[in-house]
């Protein structure tokens, strides 16, 4: 059956995706299309015929959108703070802003509460407490923001709350002994784990679909870019406050340290979440642009590193710090590859950046292979520590991720597989990260006796 309404909607969505139209333009054009269709139907055509002819008469979308772009020039410099089009959108946007304010105050106050019990920022032993819990102060609110936006049911809410509470309990009940290796590892992995849980809230019911998870990956990239900008703004404002009050001999440092930066940090996170969520597809994503600028440069550096390593015959010196450096290298390469992929249309034929991606992955795999062979030797000679095992595990997981991508890229270039397989592999791999961060955060302390 031909569903006229659906066809019209998908047509106007198509216009929307062009980005050259304001919402009012689209409504106007849609109403135009409907007039045309009605006329044709009353002239005796069937709905599907009328639809086809009307769309054809409205003309090439490219041409229309080009003409509109000339008029809506300010639209090309899009406003991030979107002017809501109708009352519903306006109410929703107001509600979101209210949520940001309320959650910022709640999160900031939550951070201040331990101070009442003698665990202020500057008290002895507090640094590890805060390091461990910092993500628990903020991320539940981010999750709540999305749960409210996605209109989650009560069951979902309770699942999330229970998850966060269990995580908080475990991490704080575990004992910890000097040199606190396992505790610090848990502290570092818990935020990543919780962020993935936030991802489930972000994608809502779609978290099982590859598309939904890919959106979460895009969201994460934009979060980082915008978060850095917003945080820089908070810092500048803070320094400015200090300087200007310094001029009248009032020391604002205590206020800034005790309140401004704490609430500022919470606000930075929640504002970023709001902004990225609001802007979504309206503005070109930033992370892919950065990735495209830096991936060729990165490739050059890595190739020269490999060449120098081979010529001088020096194998990388295998200390833990260097292993972490190689982990970072893999993570960076993964990030670059991932964000180039994220902005890509699945139907596009292979382009330059795809080959660049594959080259980047292969070089990274070679360098890491050399590094790993060295560390494995060391590990067997000096025994296992939690840090080494964690670093090694990370390395293997990233290696698996990149290896899979490389393999799928080759298959894709040979036309044996579609590009969608790469995306599926990557979004499926999120489970591996989830499990691994959970293991390091919760199982490692048990394994290594909390040392």
């Amino acid at each position, binding site marked *: 059956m031909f569903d006229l309404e659906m066809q019209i909607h998908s047509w106007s969505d198509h216009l929307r995706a062009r980005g050259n139209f304001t919402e009012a333009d689209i409504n*106007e054009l849609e*109403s*135009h299309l409907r007039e045309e269709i009605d006329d044709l139907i009353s002239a005796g055509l069937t709905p599907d015929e009328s639809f086809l002819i009307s769309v054809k008469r409205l003309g090439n979308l490219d041409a*229309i959108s080009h003409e*509109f772009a000339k008029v809506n020039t300010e639209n090309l410099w899009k406003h991030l703070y979107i002017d809501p089009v109708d009352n519903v959108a306006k109410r929703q946007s107001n509600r979101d802003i209210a949520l940001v304010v309320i959650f910022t105050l709640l999160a900031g106050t939550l951070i201040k509460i331990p101070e009442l019990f003698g665990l202020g920022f500057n008290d002895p032993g507090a640094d590890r407490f805060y390091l461990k819990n910092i993500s628990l102060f903020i991320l539940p609110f981010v999750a709540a923001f999305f749960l409210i936006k996605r209109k989650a049911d009560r069951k979902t809410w309770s699942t999330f709350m229970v998850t966060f509470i269990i995580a908080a309990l475990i991490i704080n009940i575990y004992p910890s002994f000097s040199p606190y290796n396992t505790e610090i590892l848990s502290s570092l992995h818990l935020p990543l784990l919780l962020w993935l849980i936030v991802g489930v809230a972000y994608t809502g019911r779609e978290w099982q679909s590859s598309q939904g998870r890919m959106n979460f990956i895009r969201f994460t990239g934009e979060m980082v870019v915008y978060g850095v900008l917003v945080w820089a703004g908070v810092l500048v404002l803070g320094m400015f406050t200090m300087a200007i009050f310094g001029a009248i001999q009032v020391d604002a440092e205590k206020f800034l340290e005790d309140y401004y930066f704490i609430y500022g940090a919470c606000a930075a996170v929640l504002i970023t979440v709001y902004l990225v969520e609001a802007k979504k597809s309206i503005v070109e994503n930033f992370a892919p642009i950065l990735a495209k600028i830096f991936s060729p440069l990165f490739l050059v550096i890595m190739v020269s590193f490999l060449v120098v390593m081979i010529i001088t015959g020096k194998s990388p010196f295998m200390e833990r710090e260097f292993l972490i450096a190689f982990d970072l290298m893999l993570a960076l390469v993964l990030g670059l590859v991932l964000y180039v992929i994220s902005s890509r249309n699945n139907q596009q034929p292979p382009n330059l950046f795809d080959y660049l991606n594959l080259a980047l992955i292969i070089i990274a795999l070679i360098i890491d292979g050399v590094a790993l062979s060295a560390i494995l030797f060391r590990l067997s000679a000096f025994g296992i520590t939690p840090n080494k095992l964690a670093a090694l595990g990370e390395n293997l997981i990233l290696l698996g991720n990149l290896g899979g991508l490389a393999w799928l890229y080759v298959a894709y270039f040979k036309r044996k597989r579609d590009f969608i397989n790469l995306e599926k592999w990557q979004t499926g791999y999120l489970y591996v990260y989830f499990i691994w961060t959970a293991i390091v955060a919760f199982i490692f302390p048990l394994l290594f006796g909390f040392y």
Partner: protein
Amino acid sequence: MNVSKDLIAASATPLILAILKENDSYGYAIIKRVKEMSENELVWTEGMLYPVLHRLEDQMLIESYWSKSEAGRQRKYYRIKESGLKELELQKKQWEIVHSALSKTWSE
């Protein structure tokens, strides 16, 4: 016969203003009216009409409002403003100059 693009573009403003002077109208009806008046010689595309309408609105020559049709559909109507009427008079004079010059040369 195909009227050249430049000519269509140049004549769009006076035509739209003249149509709106008759009564308020919306995009689809304007295109139909132009077709009718020109006996199917002038066929405007939407990609051309709406940007012109929006530009005229920006120039405060016309204004728009949403209203429901008899069938209950939302339509964006355009209404000519005082300044639009003046602009139309101006355009009329300009076109008359062109027209009389052309007719003189062609009749000779």
